[in-house]
């Protein structure tokens, strides 16, 4: 449950994003232009900002974030933008944004990213072991065990699993995996990510009757003990 500030000038987009986030259990404040958004963001405390990149009122999303960061405000920021060019994304992230989502987007994608951003590990202490049910991932020896039995995985599969486990209980979308695990921004044309996930799933669930990696319809994947 987070308190989220949404700054978006399009009434329809704002309405459905606000409704969706509220249904997911968050409190949402909405500002329709950059000036009001900046005022709210600076005067009240939020767990998360969702900003349109281009805003009316003289203060656009980038300026807003720059101003906030200049005041030492470190609230996570997710940009929504119709500008898809790579340098626009870089500009947004450089200004202090934490994530960038291009319009049009699926709401599930937005929600997954909002929750991933909002629940980033608060403690800076390095984690050496990740654990979900009987699945264990050792970040130092780079080994995976399930119920004490070693599972052989490729380096890329290890990173895939690590990312899923760091966001255990949260939806991770295909694009998020592509960006975070493969570190490329491109359109793979086909459902390659699904193939990789299903391979990993086979390796992990082989010989166990409880599946750990779940497919979330129209959204992505989630790793959790049992649901």
């Amino acid at each position, binding site marked *: 449950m987070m308190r989220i500030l949404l700054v978006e000038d399009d009434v329809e987009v704002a309405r459905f994003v606000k409704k969706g986030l509220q249904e997911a259990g968050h409190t949402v404040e909405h500002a329709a232009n950059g000036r009001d958004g900046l005022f709210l963001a600076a005067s009240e405390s939020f767990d998360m900002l969702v900003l349109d990149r281009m805003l009316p009122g003289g203060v656009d999303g980038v300026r807003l974030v720059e101003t906030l960061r200049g005041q030492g405000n470190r609230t996570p920021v997710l940009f929504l933008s119709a500008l898809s060019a790579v*340098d626009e994304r870089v500009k947004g992230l450089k200004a202090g944004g934490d994530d960038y989502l291009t319009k*049009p987007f699926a709401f599930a994608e937005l929600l997954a990213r909002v929750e991933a951003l909002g629940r980033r590990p608060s403690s800076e202490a390095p984690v050496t072991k990740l654990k979900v049910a009987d699945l264990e991932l050792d970040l130092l020896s780079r080994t995976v065990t399930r119920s004490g039995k070693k599972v052989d995985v490729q380096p890329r599969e290890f990173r895939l699993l690590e990312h899923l486990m760091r966001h255990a209980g949260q939806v991770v979308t295909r694009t998020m995996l592509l960006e975070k695990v*493969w570190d490329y*921004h*491109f359109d793979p044309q086909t459902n390659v990510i699904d*193939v990789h996930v299903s391979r990993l799933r086979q390796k992990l669930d082989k010989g166990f009757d409880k599946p750990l990696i779940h497919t979330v319809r129209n959204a992505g994947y989630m790793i959790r003990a049992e649901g």
Partner: protein
Amino acid sequence: MRPPAARPAPPRLLQSAGFRFALLFMGIFSIAAAFLVAVLWWATAGALDRQTVAAIRADSTALLDRHRDGGVSALIESIEDRLAQDVEAETIYLLLGPGGAKLAGNLERLPESLDGDGAWFRARIAHDGASAEARIHRRDLPGGLRLLVGRDESERVQLRLLLTEGVVWSLGAIIVFGVIGASVIRRALRARMAPATETARNIASGDMSHRVPLSPQDDEFDRLGATMNAMLDRISLLMAGVRSVSDAIAHDLRTPIARARGKLEEALATATTADDLRGAVEEGIADLDNISRIFQALLRIAEAEAGARRAAFAPLDLPEVLRDAAEFYEAMAEDAGQLLATELPGALPMVGDRDLLLQAVANLLDNAMKFTPAGGTITLSARQEGGHAVIAVADSGPGLSPEDRARAMDRFFRADASRNTPGSGLGLSLVRAVAQLHRGEVELADAHPGAAPPGLRVALRLPLG
């Protein structure tokens, strides 16, 4: 809106740059001429004047000596004598007694404006009916005598007249030639500018095919014309890009949009259960996602073709990117029963856009996997050939006929044989756009010439330097 095809009025004279240049030149020339005249005046009239002054000074000094030695009568005698022998009739004397009475000389009376001893002045005198100018020097002698010694300066006046006349005539000539020259330069300049102006006017009225004709002289105007042409080529290219994007949007985005709309409409009319309706809406969303993917690909192509992304160029190791691509698609190929083989060097550094290169290779691999039958092999290779990096994807599919190869790079081209496989048809044109962005080219060939099926080999040849 201005009325179309209104020819601009010919420039008024002073608005013409050629005319102004000529005027400027004329002005500079006039200053030089004025300087010349001034020097000439100083050298001739000045010298004459100095000579006159020296003569008057010597004369008056001699007369003063005479007065000191011989008294007033000797002075008078001396003046009379000088006048009597003055063949050139240019000397002027006047000696006045203490009471103002004239004692000797040929000057009628004392000029009015006259300072004291040692004064120099000019006076106008009537000489034999004609008016002339004279330079006169006054000396006061002991005993209340006043002596004026002068010289007729008619010569100097004449010289001045001559020079003035010369200046006026040559000034007139400068102005006349200047105006004529200015007009000629203006006409020449306009004639030289005419092709560029004509081209620009044609382009302004909407015909982009015009170019500035260049002369073999390769002068400033030709260079301007060449620059204009290069600019026009670039603009044409960009416009063609925009046009083909809008054509593509008009042509190939409408089809999926129409399809999605039709399906939704049909569901609205015929769906009987909530589940049917739900299914139709989900399908509609998937269709929209696909449309926005095509849209994204079109924008990427346009962006790459416009060269706007060179800013994102960075040093990268090509085999590393290709290994990532191979690893990414390997699992899929295996699932389809295909073998994805790689032939990559240890390292091949180059400068480029990592995301776009990966996208190009991904498109090629995706394409190859679609057309290679189970049991077939797809090879991703890279190697350095001279100053080029050559990235190639070869498959063992049916290949492309030579005619299809020529059209394969067109946006949305899909060989008839592949009409029923999924895909936007944008794959190869994006590959070409990426190659062009890296100043390279795309080559299509048979992967296994002579074999049946021949397979397709698509190679990107990118310069390293």
